[in-house]
C-alpha cells in the first residue's frame, strides 16, 4: 500500500471526530447518498456493457465517502463544482439519478440534450457548476462565483475538487492562488486516490502530501481519511464554517483510493498485486455500515429497507431513462450562440440559387 496514505496506518473502523455534531437523520442521509452513488454507478456499468452507455464510465468505487461527506457540509445556495468521479457530491446537491442516466445514455431529454457526456453538465438550480474535461479549470471558475457573491453581499460558500493529477496543471495553481490572494470562501477538496490514470502520486509531485501546499498558498489546510465519511464530513464542516465566518479558503486533502481503473476500459495492469484488496478492507460503505449498526443508529432491517428503496428508485430511473428519446439530429446546430446562426438545415446543403450573381 502506498505510504502516502493516511489510511495505511489507520484503523479499518470509522473514527468519530470529537467536534462532530450530527443528527440521526443526517447519518441516514450520508448512508443513503453513498449507497445511491455506488448503486447508480453499478447500473451505469451494466448499461455500458450492454452498449447503452457509450463513451465510458468513470467509477468512484471506494471514494463515495469523501464526495458525499464533503458536499454534505454545504447548504442550499452554496455552490459546488465536481470532477468526473464526484457523482456522490452531485447527488447530494439534489441532481436526480434519472438525469445522470439520461446524460450517460446520450438522450435528447438529458441535461445537455445529448451534447455532452457523463457529469459534464451544470444545474444552476442546484448550485452545481458543470465541469469541463480540462483538469484544473474549474478552480478559477469557482473563484469567479465567489467574487460575484462577494460583490452582491450574498452569503455563500463554494466547494470544488481537484485530483492528485489535476493539481499539476497551471490552471489549478492560478485558480487556487487567486482564491487565496483574495481570501475567498472556497473549499478545495484535493483527492489523493493514489493514481492519475496510470500515474502513481509519487511520480506526479515532489512532495508527498498536497496538504503541505496549504501554508505556501496562505490558506488553512487539513488532511483526512477520505474513506471515512464522518471525518470527511467533519473536516468539510469546519472548513465551511471557517469560510462562512470570514476565515478564508481551506484546502482539505482526502486520502483515498481509486479501486477501479481510470475508466471501464482500463485493465489496471500498473497496479501492484494485492493493493486493491488491501483497500477493499477499508471500503467506506462497509466501514460506515458497521458503524451505524454498532452505534445503534439503524437496525439491520432498516439498512435492508434503505437498500431496497435505493434499488426501487434506480429501477424506476433506469426505466425512465431507457424510454427517453435520443436527440433530434438537427438539434446539433442549436444553442451555440444566443442569436440564431444557421438559416440552412445544415451548412453543407446551401442553395446555389441563392448565390450572388444567380
Amino acid at each position, binding site marked *: 500500500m502506498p505510504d502516502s496514505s493516511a489510511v495505511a496506518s489507520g484503523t479499518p473502523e470509522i473514527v468519530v471526530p470529537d467536534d462532530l455534531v450530527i443528527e440521526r437523520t443526517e447519518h441516514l442521509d450520508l448512508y443513503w447518498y453513498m449507497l445511491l452513488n455506488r448503486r447508480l454507478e453499478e447500473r451505469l456499468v451494466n448499461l455500458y456493457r450492454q452498449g447503452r452507455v457509450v463513451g465510458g464510465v468513470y467509477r468512484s468505487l471506494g471514494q463515495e465517502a469523501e464526495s458525499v461527506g464533503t458536499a454534505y457540509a454545504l447548504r442550499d445556495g452554496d455552490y459546488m463544482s465536481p470532477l468526473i468521479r464526484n457523482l456522490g457530491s452531485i447527488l447530494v446537491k439534489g441532481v436526480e439519478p434519472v438525469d445522470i442516466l439520461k446524460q450517460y445514455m446520450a438522450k435528447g431529454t438529458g441535461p445537455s440534450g445529448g451534447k455532452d457526456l457523463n457529469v459534464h453538465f451544470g444545474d444552476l438550480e442546484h448550485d452545481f457548476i458543470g465541469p469541463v474535461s480540462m483538469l484544473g479549470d474549474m478552480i478559477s471558475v469557482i473563484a469567479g462565483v465567489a467574487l460575484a457573491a462577494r460583490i452582491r453581499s450574498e452569503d455563500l460558500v463554494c466547494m470544488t475538487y481537484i485530483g492528485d493529477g489535476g493539481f499539476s496543471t497551471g490552471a489549478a495553481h492560478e485558480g487556487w492562488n487567486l482564491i487565496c490572494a483574495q481570501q475567498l470562501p472556497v473549499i478545495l477538496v484535493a483527492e489523493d486516490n493514489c493514481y492519475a490514470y496510470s500515474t502513481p502520486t509519487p511520480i506526479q509531485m515532489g512532495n508527498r502530501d498536497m496538504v503541505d501546499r496549504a501554508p505556501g498558498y496562505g490558506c488553512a489546510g487539513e488532511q483526512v481519511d477520505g474513506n471515512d465519511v464522518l471525518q470527511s464530513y467533519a473536516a468539510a464542516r469546519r472548513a465551511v464554517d471557517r469560510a462562512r465566518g470570514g476565515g478564508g479558503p481551506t484546502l482539505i486533502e482526502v486520502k483515498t483510493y481509486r479501486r477501479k481503473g481510470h475508466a471501464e476500459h482500463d485493465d489496471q495492469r500498473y497496479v501492484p498485486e494485492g493493493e486493491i484488496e488491501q483497500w477493499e478492507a477499508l471500503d467506506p460503505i462497509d466501514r460506515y455500515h458497521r458503524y451505524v449498526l454498532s452505534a445503534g443508529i439503524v437496525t439491520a432491517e432498516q439498512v435492508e429497507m434503505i437498500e431496497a428503496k435505493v434499488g426501487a428508485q434506480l429501477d424506476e430511473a433506469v426505466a425512465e431513462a431507457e424510454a427517453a428519446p435520443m436527440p433530434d439530429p438537427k438539434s*446539433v446546430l442549436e444553442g451555440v450562440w444566443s442569436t440564431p446562426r444557421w438559416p440552412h438545415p445544415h451548412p453543407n446543403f446551401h442553395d446555389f440559387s441563392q448565390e450572388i450573381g444567380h
Partner: protein
Amino acid sequence: MSAPERGGETTYLEAIRQGLWEEMQADDSVFMLGEDIGLYGGAFKVTDGFLDRFGEHRIIDTPISEGAIIGAAVGAALMGMRPVAEMQFIDFMSCGFDMLTNVAAKNRYRWGAAVPIVVRGPAGGGVRGGPFHSGQAESYYAHTAGLKVVCPATAYDAKGLIKAAIRDDDPVIYQEHKYLYRRIKEDLPDEDFVVPLGSARIARPGRDLSIVTYAAMVHVALEAAEELAADGAEVEVVDLRSLVPFDEETVLTSVARTGKAIVLHEAPRTGGFGAEIAATIAEKAFEYLEAPIVRVTAPDTPVPYSPPLEDHYLPGKSDVLEITRRLLGY
C-alpha cells in the same frame, strides 16, 4: 510488448509506433515526454514497450501539465535534442497553447534558434468522445507562423510523416486521427522511408472534379468517389498530408485539370483550414474554375456526444455525394 517489426500489414497506430521506435533507435537525441506514456504505454498504447527498451530518461511520465511538457520540450530542443511530446488528446494541447504559439513558434524568427520538437496526439471524432475529446486543432496552429502541421490519413503516411517530423528542424504538430488508429491497415515496405513534409498526394486520380481533403475525411472522399465512378464520374481525391507547409502546386494542378473543387474537412467551417485552401484556389486557379469552390465541413458547433448528433455533425459520404453531384451538373 516487443519491438515493432518492419514491413507487412500494419495498422495506422502501429505505423506511428514503428516510426517513433525507429527514430528513437537511430538517434539518441530523440526522447519522449507525456502523461501515462511509460508505465502504461499511453492512453491508446502508441508507446507500449518503449519504457522497457529506452528507459525512464528517454521515456518520461510527466505530471498532468501540458504547458510544462511543451515548455520542457522547447528547452531540450534548444540544447540540441529532438523531443516528442505526447498530448493524451489533442484537445488538451490548448492547455499548452501559450508554450506552443509563443515559446516554440517564435524562437527561430526572433533569434535564429531551432526548436525541433514534435507535439503529437489523437484528434478527431466518430468515437463518441464529446466536446473535449474529439476536436481537430489544426486551424489554431496553422494560423501561427513558425509551426508546421501534419495530418496523416494512411498507415504509410503516418509512419513516413512521424519520421520526417522528428527529423525536421522546426516545431511540428503531428495530428493523429484516433478513428483510424485500428480501423485501417496496409502493407508497409521493409525498408526505411520518410514522407517529406509539404507534399500532397493524389489518393485517387480523376478528371471531373477535385476533392481536396486530409486525415479521416480522405477515406470519406474515396468512398464517395468509388460510388460516383459507378455513375461514370471521375473524381480526383487530393490528400494534403501536410497543411503547413501546404503543397499548393499539387492542389492547383489538380483543380486546373478538373475545373471543379470541393474542399472537405472534419473541423468546423468558419476559419477552418478549408477556407485557406479555397482562397488559394480562387486566387491562383480562377481561370480554370467552371463552378464555385464548395466547402464540405462540420458546422460551427462543438463536437457533440450523442450518436445521432455526432453522425449529423460529421461530414459523411452522403454529404460529399450530394454536393459532388450538384457540382458535376453545374
